[in-house]
């Protein structure tokens, strides 16, 4: 029983950390809450459903195509809405409100096209779990854990080693300074949307293989990622730690109270952190001198 909880914690945490990281990559360079990310996440699942179930493409081709489409969706939103807004010197609040609008628009579009009922792409995949160390775990859940580890390592390397990664850090620290030193912030932001959206699409697909899909699956999952990002301090290592904390609290919380309270548990943790340690696990002090 205990092993099962450990595995569940790992699965939940892996998922939250992919979402959290994919959101943080965008948030770091743009500094506004891109809520539409939730629908980009959902789109990964529905694109896969479309290509695999409706068009009859092979599963791997469908997944690849779906990730590319999610990436393109993210970039399209950046190019057509956010970039023009930034050009008008829009505040982060305006960008946030626009992102909420796009979220509502696209989420309802998915509802309208595919219906509100649960859709499944699991049929071709083995559903039965296998026994590992006394816990039942399905192959897709193992894939979720492995993917999350690989993604985290690759991203850390990317941000540290590559020129683009360093440019992303520079823009995250100070947009104006980065622009002065010859970095095109618009290009860097577009790249962060590409990476973040592809990751979100991937996460959406993984979730769909694990527990099926509904048009509204995105917002709650995204919020868990955002909580992981804030609690972690907007830093990749911090997000992983925070995701583990959240996964642990939610899965072991079930021992004491019913599983319906999982969301509430996460948000209570968030509020505690915001009040008492707003910079998160690893973050620098966020509050700059405001005078």
């Amino acid at each position, binding site marked *: 029983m205990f092993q099962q909880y450990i595995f569940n914690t790992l699965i939940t945490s892996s998922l939250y950390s992919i979402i959290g990281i994919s959101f943080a990559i965008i948030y770091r360079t743009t*500094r506004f809450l891109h809520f539409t990310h939730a629908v980009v996440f959902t789109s990964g699942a529905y694109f896969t459903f479309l290509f695999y179930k409706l068009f009859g493409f092979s599963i791997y081709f469908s997944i690849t195509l779906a990730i590319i489409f999610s990436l393109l969706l993210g970039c399209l939103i950046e190019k057509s809405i956010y970039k023009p807004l930034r050009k008008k010197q829009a505040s982060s609040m305006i960008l946030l*409100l*626009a992102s909420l609008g796009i979220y509502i628009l696209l989420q309802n579009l998915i509802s309208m096209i595919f219906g509100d009922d649960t859709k499944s792409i699991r049929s071709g995949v083995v559903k039965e779990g296998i026994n590992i160390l006394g816990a039942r775990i399905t192959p897709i859940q193992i894939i979720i854990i492995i993917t999350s580890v690989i993604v985290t390592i690759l991203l850390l390397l990317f941000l540290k080693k590559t020129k683009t990664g360093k440019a992303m850090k520079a823009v995250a620290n100070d947009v104006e300074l980065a622009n002065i030193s010859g970095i095109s912030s618009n290009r860097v932001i577009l790249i962060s949307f590409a990476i973040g959206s592809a990751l979100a699409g991937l996460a959406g697909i993984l979730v769909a293989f694990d527990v099926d899909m509904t048009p509204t699956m995105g917002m709650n999952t995204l919020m868990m990622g955002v909580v992981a990002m804030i609690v972690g301090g907007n830093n990749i290592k911090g997000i992983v730690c925070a995701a583990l904390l959240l996964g642990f609290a939610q899965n072991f919380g079930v021992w004491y109270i019913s599983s*319906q309270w999982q*969301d*509430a548990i996460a948000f209570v943790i968030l*509020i505690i952190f*915001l009040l008492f340690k707003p910079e998160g696990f690893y973050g620098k002090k966020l509050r700059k001198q*405001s005078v």
Partner: protein
Amino acid sequence: MTYLLHIFILIGIYIILSLSLNLIAGYTGILSMAHAAFYGIGAYIAALMALNFNSPFILNLFLAVIGSSILGALVGIPSLRIKDDYFIIATFAFQIIIFNILNNLVSFTGGPMGLPGIPQPVIFGIKISSHFSFLVLTAILCAITYFICNKIVKSPFGRILKAIREDEVFTKSLGKNVSAYKVKIFMISSGLAAISGVMYATYITYIDPTSFTLMESIFIISIVIIGGAGNLKGSIVGAVVLVMLPEILRFVGLPNSIAANIRQMLYGGLLVVFMLWRPQGFIGEYSFNRNNENG
């Protein structure tokens, strides 16, 4: 005719919601994603009182406003420490926690099954049951809410709210206790939102948590922004437009299954369009143009 009265009652309920949110978002410049939570708290307090104790409507209304104000303070106080984006996320969290409570405390709130059979209001011995009498009551409550909000925003108290919206640091340097003002306006706004909740609960006579979701909060924000933040008349315009518009679509003959989606897409789309070209809304005086001070 009944249908038209129904729409007018709904507009009235949303006017109260958007007027009250305007005090926080439009006048004080703080975005809150938790307004539907207060709407819900008001509805549930009144419904539970009426169902369990058969208490009079006026008392229920009073308790709903007080209860919601106290919870409003609970959201307002963190706003002193948590800023900008993180505060928005915190209100988001509050909204979802309240929804969870309404949905999960089945023995108390009825959970997803909701609370059926809420008695209709009786005021000074007059039973409010026809659509027309409900419309009159809603209109009176709307007028009272407008009067209160108008008094506030036209007073020196309101002047400080606007100053906080534009420049908190400067407002502090003028000796104003910014924190106290924020908490107070949160309490007023939440209390007023509860009025809508009470009206909704006693009008429909049935409530369940799905009426008080995050999406509902976003809808109320959209009304405030599209109508015009920082202008009380804007909230009225916004409520009329956003409640009427989907009803007009109904006459185009859209099938019911997609009408709900179209309705939402419409206001989602409007929100984007307004942010791009008219962030101050139809007749607003504030366009959320202040950037994050922190982070």
